[in-house]
């Protein structure tokens, strides 16, 4: 625990130091250096706690009513903390060079201060053992990340994204505030420990709904995800990586913590999370498929992966409610492992997108192309991330999705109730659909951006990022491989964490995990054979080609004499078949100009997919609110005297009312 406090102290002090120096270089070095060093210090106790060290707590009073500075480091907090700190260290290192290259003489001190504050506030959220302390950390996290999103505030689109994020995060925060106040009133204290044994009776369900809405807004559950596709593209890339990789996971953490405080779950909680997971997963990946902006595409993939995580957690809750240790361990295990995996590969992909942006100056997929020759390392890292996020072996995404598949198939094989079978079938089908669509989406993203020929001058003049940006990406890619290569070790290490989350005894969980590890080992040997066969085929090819002459020629161009780079598949055209298949859900707008007469000279076709929940849910809601509130505008006319009069009249009325009420 003391190491954790030291770590948070280093991070915060480093942020303050970065704020106080004038030079851009020193601000970066101080901010990033302290964030990385502090994260590494904190990683030690976090990992120890996640792997089953006895829970530690730390606390002293605080002269704020209801609040106390109580921190609690148990396996659940330790696991999320380890993920957070690892990704913070990596993105901080990457950010040094990335922010240096931002144009203009803008001071970097505030950006690094907010970055370090964001890391420290996430630590506070994960460690807090008191409702008020938790909300304090939660709001600090929201504000720090808001300022980071608004870093390039000279662009109107960035300012707009910042506002969307701020409004969304406060709406979610309002639900959490209601939840915490109601819970504290029922329990008589803001301490989580006191909440643990409180019997809530009929209001338990409504508390869970409040938690799902409040935490789901941060996590990005469909249809509350509206801020993700706005804020992630606008933020600097290392911040997008941190926000998408770990900050949205604090929503998952909060949901887990709250459901553990709310007591044993009824079956419909699991069903609700499975439903949310399926809709977020499928719609998230479909909307990603329809995007033309690389970082926006990645943001929608965060929605998809949060959906997969929710699916795992839903299966786990279902296991808890039906008393099945196997289902609970597999579901929670898959969901939680996916938290770690998503942090790794989504961090990697956002950093890769940042390198592309850094090297070419654009995020528009259709303006890129052929980058693999110009940026081989970035391209390689992006390929690893793409394969991992599509759930392909032998990478880490495969492992966690396999666990969730196991849980879903277990539901089907052990039908204790018709609801569980339905859930299992829906989860298997949904997860398979999500995986296939994700693979298609990343075939599009990687293919259009990195393969083929450059479509614009910007892509032609692309340059590879320096080692300061490549090493962090390399580290993340290596850990994707590592988890994929050591599934047995990783899965078996989840025992203490699952013991805390599911409440089943550790030996039972270890037995389930040993079985799962057996499946992993079997699948792993098949994968090994396939990989060995592929390697042998490659070796054979090299052997056959040795000593022979090779030529490279143009791709066959259908007899067209002068092909140009613009004749390649674009992002829109690549995705078009799938988009039109799902057009009722996506409501993509197509625009086709030209193509008239027998010999059309120019024609162009473009698609635009706007966020359905923003258009159909939030815009009507906010327009209605604006209309109602617009009527109040008459009260505001700038006359100072009348304002004072309002105050006086209100006070006198209140006084009169309270006097009338008094005996």
């Amino acid at each position, binding site marked *: 625990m003391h190491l954790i406090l030291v770590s948070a102290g280093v991070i915060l002090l480093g942020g303050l130091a970065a704020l106080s120096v004038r030079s851009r270089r020193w601000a970066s070095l101080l901010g990033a250096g302290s964030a990385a060093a502090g994260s590494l210090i904190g990683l030690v106790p976090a990992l120890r706690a996640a792997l089953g060290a006895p829970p530690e707590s730390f606390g002293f009073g605080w002269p704020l009513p209801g609040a106390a500075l109580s921190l609690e480091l148990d396996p659940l907090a330790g696991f999320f903390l380890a993920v957070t700190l690892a990704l913070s260290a990596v993105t901080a290192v990457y950010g040094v060079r990335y922010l240096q290259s931002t144009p203009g003489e803008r001071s970097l001190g505030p950006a690094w201060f907010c970055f370090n504050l964001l890391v420290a506030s996430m630590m506070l959220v994960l460690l807090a053992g008191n409702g008020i302390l938790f909300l304090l950390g939660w709001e600090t996290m929201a504000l720090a990340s808001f300022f980071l999103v608004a870093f390039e505030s000279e662009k109107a689109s960035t300012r707009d994204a910042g506002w969307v994020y701020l409004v969304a995060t406060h709406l979610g925060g309002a639900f959490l505030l209601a939840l915490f106040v109601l819970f504290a009133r029922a329990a008589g204290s803001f301490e989580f420990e006191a909440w643990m044994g409180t019997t809530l009776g009929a209001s338990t369900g409504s508390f869970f709904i409040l938690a799902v809405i409040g935490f789901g807004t941060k996590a990005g559950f469909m249809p509350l995800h509206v801020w993700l596709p706005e804020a992630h593209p606008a933020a600097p890339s290392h911040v997008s990586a941190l926000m998408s990789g770990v900050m949205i996971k604090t929503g998952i953490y909060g949901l887990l913590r709250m459901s553990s405080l709310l007591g044993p779950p009824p079956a419909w909680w699991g069903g609700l999370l499975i439903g949310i997971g399926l809709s977020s997963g499928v719609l998230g990946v479909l909307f990603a498929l329809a995007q033309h902006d690389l970082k926006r595409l990645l943001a929608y993939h965060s929605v998809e992966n949060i959906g997969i995580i929710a699916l795992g957690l839903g299966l786990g809750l279902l296991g808890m409610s039906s008393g099945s240790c196997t289902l609970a361990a597999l579901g929670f295990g898959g969901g939680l492992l996916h938290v770690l995996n998503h942090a790794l590969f989504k961090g990697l992909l956002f950093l890769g997108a940042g390198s592309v942006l850094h090297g070419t100056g654009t995020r528009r997929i259709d303006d890129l192309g052929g980058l693999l020759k110009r940026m081989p390392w970035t391209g390689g890292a992006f390929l690893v991330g793409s394969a991992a996020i599509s759930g392909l072996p032998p990478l880490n995404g495969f492992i966690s999705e396999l666990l969730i598949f196991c849980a879903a198939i277990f539901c089907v094989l052990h039908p204790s109730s018709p609801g569980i079978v339905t859930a299992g079938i829906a989860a298997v089908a949904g997860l398979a659909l999500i995986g296939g669509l994700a693979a298609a989406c990343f075939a599009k993203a990687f293919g259009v951006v990195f393969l083929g020929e450059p479509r614009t001058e910007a892509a032609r003049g692309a340059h590879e990022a320096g080692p300061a940006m490549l090493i962090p990406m390399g580290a993340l890619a290596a850990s994707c491989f590592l988890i994929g290569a050591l599934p047995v070790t990783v899965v078996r290490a989840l025992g203490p964490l699952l013991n805390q989350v599911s409440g089943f005894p550790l030996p039972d969980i270890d037995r389930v995990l040993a079985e799962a590890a057996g499946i992993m080992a079997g699948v792993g040997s098949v994968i090994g054979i396939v990989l060995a066969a592929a390697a042998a085929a490659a070796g054979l090819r090299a052997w056959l080609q040795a000593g022979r002459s090779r030529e490279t020629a143009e791709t066959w161009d259908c007899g067209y004499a002068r092909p140009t780079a613009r004749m390649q598949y674009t992002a829109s055209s690549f995705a078009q078949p799938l988009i039109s298949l799902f057009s009722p859900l996506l409501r993509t707008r197509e625009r086709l100009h030209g193509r008239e007469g027998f010999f059309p000279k120019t024609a162009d076709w473009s698609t635009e997919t706007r966020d359905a929940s923003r258009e159909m849910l939030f815009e009507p809601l906010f327009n209605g609110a604006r209309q109602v509130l617009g009527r109040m505008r008459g009260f505001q*006319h*700038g*006359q*100072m*005297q009348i304002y*004072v*009069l309002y105050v*006086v009249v209100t006070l006198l009325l209140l006084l009169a009312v309270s*006097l009338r009420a008094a005996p």
Partner: protein
Amino acid sequence: MNPATNLIDTVTAILLITNLMLLGSGYLTSCIRYAALQGLAVGLLPLLLHAQGSWGRAAALAAAGMILKGVVFPIVLTRILRDINVRREVEPFVGYGTSVMAGVGMLAFSMWLTRRLSLSAVPESALIMPAGFATVLIGLFLIVSRRKAVTQVLGYIVMENGIYAFGTALAGGVPLLVELGVLLDAFVAVFIMSIAIYHISREFDHIDVDQLDRLQG
């Protein structure tokens, strides 16, 4: 009847008379003088009301209040008036006669209110509490009903006097820190507002508050 009660009643009378004069006068210089007189009178209250408490503290408080309200504020405001060359409150929202009548009404309301509130009355005088409350209301009334920014500053000072009188009468135990805080508040407010008024008049050639609505939403 002991001499302290006499003095307290005198102070209360001065408070009420200056209130009515502030309401009925249009000359800004005289208004500043009335407010200064009121400040001096109110400043005496800690000495008279809580003689049993620590003398040093009451004396320090009284001195600070009287110097600030009786000397510093009038000098600052008079200098501003000289600089910006405004003499009179022209066309207030509520006429002078009506204002005085409203003031009397507010005094009656305060009397009813303090009786209704059943506060622990000051043994020496029954009048000081309603007078203090009426002063608060009249200060607010000045802010609401007058056009010139200087009169608004005076309104705040009058309101502060009312709070001071009411507070001192209500509880002898108001901590020194709080009392000093209120004084400091008024002090800072007057300074900031006088600077603002000066700049506003340089910028716009007038200090009419009702024309400063350009920034409305």
